[in-house]
């Protein structure tokens, strides 16, 4: 296995994913397979190759920094799991 449980736990924490014990066991096995598989990239000769930035070889378009959206907070918050007074609710952060 190219990855061990500690590494997978670290990755899961970075990704903000809580896994069950069974999921950890499976993830160690399957992520190791994926990492081993993509490791064949090291065989490619990429000396001096500029990494791709855009598939069409064009530059990113710029736009004027202007306000174009209207305030639709109420409509957007209809999808929120918990809101009050126009604010999103989360567990208490500051004691």
């Amino acid at each position, binding site marked *: 296995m190219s990855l061990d449980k500690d590494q997978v736990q670290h990755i899961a924490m970075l990704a903000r994913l809580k896994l069950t014990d069974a999921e950890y066991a499976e993830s160690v096995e399957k992520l190791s397979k994926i990492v081993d598989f993509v490791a064949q*990239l090291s065989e490619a000769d*990429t000396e001096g190759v500029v990494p791709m930035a855009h598939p069409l070889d064009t530059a990113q378009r710029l736009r004027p920094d202007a306000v174009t959206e209207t305030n639709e907070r109420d409509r957007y918050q209809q999808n929120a799991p918990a809101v009050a007074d126009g604010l999103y609710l989360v567990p208490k952060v500051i004691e």
Partner: protein
Amino acid sequence: MELHAKTLAELAAGLEGSDFTSLEVTRALLDRIAAHNEKLNAFVTVTADEALAAAARADQARAEGSGGALNGLPIIHKDIFCTRGVKTTCGSKMLENFISPYDATVVEKLQNAGAVVLGKSNMDEFAMGSSNETSYFGPVHNPWDLDCSPGGSSGGSSASVAARFAPAATATDTGGSIRQPAALTGTVGLKPTYGRVSRYGMIAFASSLDQAGVITRSAEDAAMMLGVMAGFDPRDSTSIDTPVPDYVAGLGESVKGLRIGIVRQHFDEGLDPDCAARVKDSIAVLESMGATTVEVDLPNIDMSVPTYYVVAPAECSSNLSRFDGVRFGYRAKNAEDLLDLYCRSRGEGFGDEVKRRIMTGTYVLSAGYYDAYYLKAQQVRQLIADDFKKAFADVDVIAGPTTPTPAFKLGDKVDDPITMYLNDIYTIGANLAGLPAISVPCGFVNDLPVGLHLVGPHFAEQTLLRTAHQYQQQTDFHRACPGDFK
């Protein structure tokens, strides 16, 4: 011919000639969906009421002498496109109850053209999968063999079009997700050039690869759909501002003199010999019509799947960080603190394959591994794109198989991610290089459809559609209907 058997073009002609109304067509297809969808599980949501209302409006518009290019024609949207007022789940528990506050540009354009939306099709969760088995709403079944997968991620769209639920369905392709399901269901699947169709309102998986397209039964229908869907959109920062040709008008041009490139590696031992035979037969048909073939070399193409499985997960890990259990989507109950809320909402809201890809992406982007994986992959990606560019100096299209085998059984590949990933070995190169590509039905192996894959240079959709259309004038594989759905 029964209404459900008609293509988009045939329905358009019938509506124009007052042979039937949009309301009649819409009712017929909704009845068909109600009767047969249980076998396929192709829909997440059927929008019967909205469809009937839209059909009535279309008929009214026609009576008044107005209406757009697709006025009254029935289509289905992949459930990755945001639809205002109708659930958009992306095949995930995370978005099980999400109702978008806005329409995707593709949805808006098709609506403005008068299309009637019958519903939202099932798909692999967040478009991550090649079999439709990662959907939170269960797998879709292939109309040609209900034990088989319809491919993925656009499996609900491909199964629906193959089963004659609708003549056309929108779809998306990040690493073969339009073309592979099209091949496995005997339909046409067109992935346009990166940036040709707006990504606005299309839930993001890997933003440098994602592209919206269409699944139909004829190349002509794909041309009709693309003509409406394509075009510059200021709301998509990678949308390309280049004119949209009249794709339908160009279909009649012959393939005489068309230069077809054949990639040797695409016919190696990984390809089922019977599939290889069908694909070679189809290329011979094009040659008999005046096209010529030449062998072309894509020296780095073998690296395309590993390259993709670094780049796509990296972008997915970044894109899916927006799902935090706070602003929209699934939220875990009784969180201890904010971190617990994030981790449990994501852990419980995402399925296994999505979590695997997020973690793969997190790993390849993490300190100490970025250069070896992500940067390296973007370099190899450039090499692959350069290979295509060189090849297209000598040929107009590259032809080969869409998939290594016909449809596989549901459950067969789900336990081994690498085996599943390799199903997209022939299609992924086009995504990495941003190229347009199409899969066209080219025969059967053991009564299961096989697809011919054509790739063109940037913005050569016209060439692909014309080649596919001309091929379909000489063959009738696209007219074959699965036995249980006649």
